[in-house]
């Protein structure tokens, strides 16, 4: 037990990256953390507000508030379950402290338990967003007494148990089954991708069911049905909260304990076999092939070489690939939405677009699509916002290379730009081609391309500015860099920027009743202007900032 507490404390402290930082940086961190906290509280409050109305209505109509609570808790568990996959995989399998931990004289289940607990704490941030609003709004709407709030705290604190036990038990069994496979890191990448895809589809299905006259949130809850049933202790919590049943609460706590016991047994049996050999990588020990030697002999420009290396770094790292591919979230949502909309009776979207393709409306549609996709999708590719941090201690070697320090930033942006542009813009490009085929002026194609590239460049440099301001260069595990508060802030900033660009492009034109082709012109000019301005600022700031960084 003592060992377990000691290990857990150490792991959590390492994960939070608390250490001797200089003062300015600490302030930045607190500021970032503060902003994130305010954002979360604001979101929770907003959800609570709308939910309280919903519960009020249900209760007033003599409905079953109890079912509402159960659904809310199931949503929280589901969120922890889905998002827990990458967390568990990185904590249990790709942390670089594995070698050290395995050499300690403690039982393997203690190590697993400490890592589980670390995930458990991280999971609160998710549960807070997804389940806390339900608990609060139910209490408020029914005017609950002290007993309810005490029960609610207990329920909330134990909420991540079952989903995380599922995640870690599945992960341990799968990794055990594949323990002979080389490059198991790849497996962890695939696992994360699958879970994110699942989350995406689920969110989308729920939201789209909510379209029409029912409220989104309510529909989302009711869509859960069978998925929520995999968490067997939800009814106990529902009884505890809905009817203030002490037995329900005890059963809930007991079921959590049983799940933890299950986890410990599985960990004891398979965790060692599943984690040992995680560091193995495929190697081929042989002299270089003639092709390699020939390629080595080709002289390239320094900048070209730099871009190539930055790209290779991304391609060879499952973690970085995963970060880049998250960008597909927006386009995937869009495609799913399109498909769902087309299945409705009134929804021949493509046909309607084709009809308006020859008119002025096409400019508006394509401009809006390009701006939104570019800014929103590129914002979800977090790589530029951790690019400097990913250099880690290697930054001091990079700084000794005979190039301007800002060239490093340029190379990073150039390396990511083609993928970033295509992932965020393949839909606007396809739409443009479709419209041109149906009568829109072909001049729209270069406009859409320039607008998309400029927007992507602007987003990359804006994200990079955030990383330059407060980088995290002292990590052991590259994936821990992704937990920097600044990444989320920079994403929000890019989305906000996208909204501003859209507003500037469309609102004045609409208010003044000007020809809508003007919106396209404004969108183009603003995107290009932002790209040039942000690039220049990021490069000059980066040059100065990189000189100071150790």
């Amino acid at each position, binding site marked *: 037990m003592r060992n377990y507490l000691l290990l857990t404390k150490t792991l959590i402290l390492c994960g939070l990256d608390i250490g*001797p930082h*200089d*003062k*300015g940086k600490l302030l930045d961190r607190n500021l970032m953390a503060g902003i994130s906290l305010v954002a979360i509280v604001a979101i929770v409050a907003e959800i609570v507000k709308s939910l309280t109305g919903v519960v009020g209505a249900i209760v007033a109509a003599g409905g079953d508030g109890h079912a509402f609570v159960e659904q809310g808790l199931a949503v929280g568990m589901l969120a922890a379950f889905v998002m827990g996959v990458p967390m568990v995989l990185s904590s249990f399998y790709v942390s670089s402290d594995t070698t050290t931990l395995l050499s300690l004289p403690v039982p393997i289940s203690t190590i697993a338990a400490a890592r589980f607990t670390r995930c458990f704490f991280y999971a609160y941030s998710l549960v807070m967003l997804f389940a806390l609003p339900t608990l609060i709004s139910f209490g408020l709407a029914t005017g609950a007494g002290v007993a309810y709030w005490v029960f609610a705290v207990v329920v909330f604190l134990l909420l991540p148990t079952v989903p995380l036990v599922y995640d870690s038990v599945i992960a341990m069994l799968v990794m055990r089954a594949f323990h002979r496979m080389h490059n198991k890191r790849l497996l962890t990448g695939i696992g994360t991708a699958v879970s994110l895809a699942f989350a995406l589809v689920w969110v989308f299905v729920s939201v789209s069911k909510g379209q029409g006259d029912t409220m989104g949130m309510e529909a989302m809850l009711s869509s859960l049905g069978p998925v929520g049933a995999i968490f067997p202790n939800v009814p106990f919590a529902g009884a505890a909260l809905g009817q203030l049943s002490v037995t329900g609460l005890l059963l809930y706590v007991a079921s959590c304990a049983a799940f933890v016991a299950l986890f410990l047994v599985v960990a004891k049996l398979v965790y060692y076999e599943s984690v040992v050999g995680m560091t193995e*990588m*495929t*190697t*081929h*020990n*042989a*002299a*270089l*092939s003639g092709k*390699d*030697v020939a*390629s*080595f*002999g*080709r*002289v*390239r*420009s*320094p900048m*070209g*070489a*730099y871009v*190539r*290396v930055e790209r*290779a*770094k*991304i391609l*060879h*790292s499952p973690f*970085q690939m995963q970060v880049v591919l998250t960008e597909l979230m927006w386009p995937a949502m869009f495609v799913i939405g399109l498909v769902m909309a087309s299945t409705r009776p009134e929804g021949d979207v493509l046909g309607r677009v084709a009809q308006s393709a020859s008119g002025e409306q096409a400019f508006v549609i394509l401009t809006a699509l390009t701006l939104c996709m570019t800014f929103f999708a590129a914002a979800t590719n977090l790589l530029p916002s951790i690019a400097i941090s990913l250099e880690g*201690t*290697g*930054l*001091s*070697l*990079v*700084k*000794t*290379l*005979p*190039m*301007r320090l800002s060239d490093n930033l340029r190379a990073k942006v150039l390396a990511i730009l083609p993928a970033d542009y295509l992932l965020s813009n393949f839909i606007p490009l396809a739409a443009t081609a479709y419209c041109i085929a149906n009568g829109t002026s072909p001049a729209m194609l270069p406009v859409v391309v320039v607008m998309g590239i400029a927007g992507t460049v602007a987003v990359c440099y804006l994200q990079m500015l955030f990383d330059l301001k407060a980088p995290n260069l002292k990590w052991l595990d590259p994936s821990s860099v992704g937990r920097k508060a600044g990444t989320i802030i920079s994403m929000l900033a890019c989305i906000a920027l996208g909204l501003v660009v859209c507003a500037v492009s469309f609102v004045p034109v609409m208010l003044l009743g000007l020809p809508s082709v003007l919106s396209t012109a404004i969108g183009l000019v603003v995107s290009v202007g932002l790209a040039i301005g942000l690039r220049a600022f990021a490069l000059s700031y980066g040059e100065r900032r990189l*000189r*100071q960084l*150790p």
Partner: protein
Amino acid sequence: MIEIKGVSKAYAGSRHKAVDNLSWIVPDGAITGFIGPNGAGKSTSIHMMTGSLEPDAGSILLNGVDIVKDPIEAKRQFGFVPDVPDVFLNLKAIEYLNFMADLYAVPTAERSRFLGEVPARLEIADVLDNQIAALSHGMRQKVIIMGALIHRPPIWILDEPMAGLDPKSAFELKKMMREHAASGRSVLFSTHVLEVAEKLCDQICVINHGRQLYLGTLEQLKARHPGMSLEDIFLAITEGGTGDATGDAR
């Protein structure tokens, strides 16, 4: 040649100077050892010479080029091997070497000469197609050493280069350092292992707590402490702070 003039550095938030008024010339045609216990300030000094850390005071010239005023030209003067070889882990070794060759515009003929000779000398020709992350510490060290030497820099700066190398490779590296110095160019390397310094160095600079304690040849140092072993001398200098070994030795 490296000219270090009155260089000081305190890390942010620290009251103590990690490097305190260091002045010294690393001459051409010689191997210079930079010696001191762990935490003495060797790496900090080297990072200032290589432009990854800015000095609070003083200036550093590499072959006459100021590292702060004309960093890019100054950086072309040296090849640098950092103390931690864990950089560019995601790249294959050959990709890293290719990158360094392109960055310093090494011509094709020179590349093939290098590839034909150096990997075999360091015995890592067979692992160049692997990711650096899959190499052992010593192998990583060798890849980084190769990357630093591929553009034939006039100045070599190596931070603890022998750490992690097997005897044969350490021997080869020392031989390469001697050849380089013999061709009239300069080699600076740091170490806390006295035996390495003893056999190799033409000049040594001893520091501790950021302060320069001795500068000169090993023979002079031994002559001033007759009858004492090198280890004892070293302990006497570094423990004694600004002991009797400072001063006129330069």
